[in-house]
């Protein structure tokens, strides 16, 4: 039973309660909502502020006024028309992110399936090893070694040189999430498919995959957010302005004037966070269900 359902049931029970309860002013409920709304505002206001900044005129952006005297809606067009390197950074980010999300999701589905629904010698050891990597700062300790061999292979300042390490960043977590999702699916279902003569590949594709859709959305979102905004490795493995991803380009331009004036950077910023928020808005139903189903239980 999800909490939404249980709160529905609780709501029905309240309606049947005697009238005495209904007359009293619900201080507790109001207080509860007030606290939640307070936290929601803390979350929303910074994001709203940067959105507003991207519409401020240049003058208003550099004075202290929160609400601008004059709006300027040209910053978005300006970024697209006058700043070609930014567009290049943007497309770099899109290529890197899409590749990372697709590869990580596919290979973690395969691994999660094999760990739960096939006879796999050493499955318990693999699971323990994956969990262990979550407790170790792998990114930090491996950064020098990866730099060295990527340099020797000529992968520095290339997009594959970012995609390959990015895939590894969240791989253990993704596999553990997919494993959690597959564990919710009854083994009888898999056995039945096997008795019907389906190969393990077909069982995965036609029976398990549709049932794991919510978990796949969670894994996809987590990897999207990581790859889209990754900073440290991108800064380490690229130094050519044209090969940089968007976040690195954005962080290197703090409070400058002219081309990189604040409202213009804010416009870029809004464009940078919009894809994630849009994807989240579209996929939220599956995302939430995926979180409930076992993505948070490992």
């Amino acid at each position, binding site marked *: 039973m*999800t909490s939404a359902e249980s709160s529905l049931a609780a709501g029905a029970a309240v309606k049947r309660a005697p009238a005495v309860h209904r007359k009293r002013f619900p201080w507790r409920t109001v207080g509860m909502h007030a606290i939640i709304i307070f936290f929601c505002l803390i979350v929303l206001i*910074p994001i709203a*502020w940067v959105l507003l900044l991207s519409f401020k005129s240049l003058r208003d952006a550099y004075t202290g006024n929160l609400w601008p005297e004059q709006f300027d809606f040209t910053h978005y067009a300006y970024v697209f028309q006058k700043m070609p390197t930014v567009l290049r950074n943007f497309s770099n980010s899109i290529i890197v992110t899409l590749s990372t999300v697709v590869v990580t999701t596919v290979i973690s589905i395969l691994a999660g399936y094999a760990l739960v629904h096939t006879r796999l010698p050493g499955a318990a050891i693999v699971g323990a090893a994956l969990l262990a990597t979550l407790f170790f700062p792998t990114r930090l*300790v491996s950064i020098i070694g990866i730099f060295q061999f990527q340099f020797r292979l000529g992968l520095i300042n290339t997009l594959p040189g970012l995609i390959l390490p990015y895939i*590894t960043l969240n791989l253990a977590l993704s596999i553990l999430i997919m494993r959690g999702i597959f564990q919710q699916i009854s*083994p009888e279902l898999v056995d039945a498919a096997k008795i019907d003569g389906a190969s393990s590949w077909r069982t995965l594709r036609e029976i398990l995959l549709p049932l794991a859709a919510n978990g796949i959305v969670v894994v996809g979102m987590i990897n999207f957010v990581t790859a889209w905004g990754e900073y440290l490795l991108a800064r380490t493995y690229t130094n050519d302005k044209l090969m940089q991803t968007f976040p690195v380009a954005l962080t290197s331009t703090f409070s400058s004037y002219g081309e990189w004036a604040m409202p213009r950077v804010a416009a870029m910023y809004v464009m940078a966070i919009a894809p994630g928020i849009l994807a989240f808005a579209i996929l939220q139903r599956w995302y939430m269900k995926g979180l409930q189903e076992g993505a948070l239980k490992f």
Partner: protein
Amino acid sequence: MSTVTAPRTVGKPKRSLRARYRDWGNWIYLLPVLFFFVVYMAYPILKSMWMSFYDYQYLSNSPASFVGLKNFVNAIKDPIFLTGIRRAFYFTILFLPGVILIPLFLAILVDRVKNPRLATLYRLILLLPAVIPAAMIFVLWRWLYDFEIGPINVILRDYLGLFNRFNAPQWVGTSPLSIPAVAFVEIWWGLGYHTMFFLAGLASIPRELFEAARVDGSNEWQTFWSVTLPRLQPIMMILVVLRFGTAMAVIDDFMIMGGLNRAMPTYTWTVYMWHLAFSLGSWPHGYAAAIGWLGALAMLVVVAGLLYVFRNRD
């Protein structure tokens, strides 16, 4: 750990040697994953361990020679490294309670929202920062914290009149406030995501337990201590250990907010390691690797200690 992965014996209790041999064929599903773990995790980590015993300088032409534990000994005596560890620990102490207790409190409140639409809306709003990537979060907050035109100081100074242009708080930079300021950003970022963890935990508590507690006459506070908290304990423990590890190894925040400047309080051991490896002198990779490993080992000791303290006593 779950035991679902144990082999299911269907029909015959003993399987033929050939069948068991065939089981290894299922490893084909793990091959791509194996490639990434070996090439991009195991190999570079072991390589960095190997390097930490050599005086390897990336940009220098002279061949590296084996120096034994010299890098580690130097690191332990290096005041920058030790200060860096202390700073990371200070950050962790500020960050950890905030990212566990505030979401726990919030989850208990959101879990009681009876209107299903509102409940969903609250969750969506709280989760918004979780879909904004890390670097973007710090860029945003660098603006918000800005001394002159950052809205926080604008409100404190121009709208509330609490400060003037000379004594307004300096949130980032060389100010002692900068570590707490970064910790606040991290808590803000993790708020919704961690609330979801606790909401999932709360949803798995059978409602009858709350009913039973109410029938027994226990008040909200007693119910929290006797029913809610024990049931959430496993989730809390794993979050404490995981977040301790991530907090001690935080680096992106500090590099974006404070830069590579030793005068900054945000110059922690992680920033120092990166600075050594990719920017200072002739890139002493051997020494940087030793620092990375020392920091990681120090963390592992604490993580192992925490896991031991939190171990399942049932």
